[in-house]
């Protein structure tokens, strides 16, 4: 699993196209320089979409988790662990990158 830090700032990678379509966030990885709708696509559940929307290159992952904990009135520690898990998956699949100079 990729190394994820709560004090780091992340942004969606340039190697994906992500669009909210008919209420669903569809993420298309640009594999070998092609946006391939025949290949592997990804989507996030609702809390996942909240996290993705906050990956703005400014907000730290800790702040993202705090906002999510407030949104869902959940224990911050529990939410942080969940957010770290999701970010680990996204980083492993190169769908997000750490923001440069953040």
């Amino acid at each position, binding site marked *: 699993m990729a190394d994820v830090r709560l004090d780091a700032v992340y942004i969606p990678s340039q190697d994906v196209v992500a669009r909210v*379509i008919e209420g669903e966030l569809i993420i298309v990885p640009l594999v070998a320089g092609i946006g391939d*709708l*025949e290949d*592997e696509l990804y*989507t996030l559940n609702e*809390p996942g979409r909240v996290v993705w929307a906050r990956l703005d290159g400014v907000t730290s992952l800790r702040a993202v988790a705090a906002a*999510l904990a407030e949104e869902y009135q959940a224990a911050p520690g529990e939410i942080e662990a969940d957010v770290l898990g999701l970010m680990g998956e996204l980083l492993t699949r190169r769908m997000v990158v750490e923001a440069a100079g953040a």
Partner: protein
Amino acid sequence: MKPQAPSPALYHIRGKDLPISRAALLELMREVLARGIPFRFRARGWSMTPFIRDGDVVRVAPLRISAPALGEVVAFIHPDAGEVIVHRVIGRRGASCLIQGDNAPSGADGFVPGENILGRVTRVEREGRVIWLGLGPERYLIALLSRSGLLLPLRLRLGLLWRALGKRSVR
């Protein structure tokens, strides 16, 4: 009190299994092509038979600086329907293209403004095989036949002849 949130989760979808509307297809295609990157998707319909059949996988490349040429096959937004369609350029007038399906009995789609043309088709695959699309010099002849309304009748007659020859060889 809000319900307990499920953990944020990422789900994997096989693209070919994703039911996607034409509007959604248009959004994704636009976004990818705007980045200068080709887009690959499964075509639906029969209006480009025999070159493109229902279920064939089509690759569309961004236009970049060159406008589509006569006989090229393009993905465009139909001016009236607002949907993505893949048909052949059979004429040019300034930045607009006269476009028509190779197997469209209803005739041409009309002159389509350049800004509606999303990209050119560079490759078609059927069950993993690359299909001849008639994009070499023969594209001028295909465009001419299509424009003059001869492509469809010619194709039907050739198809009947081919079948007849096939039956004779079986005997």
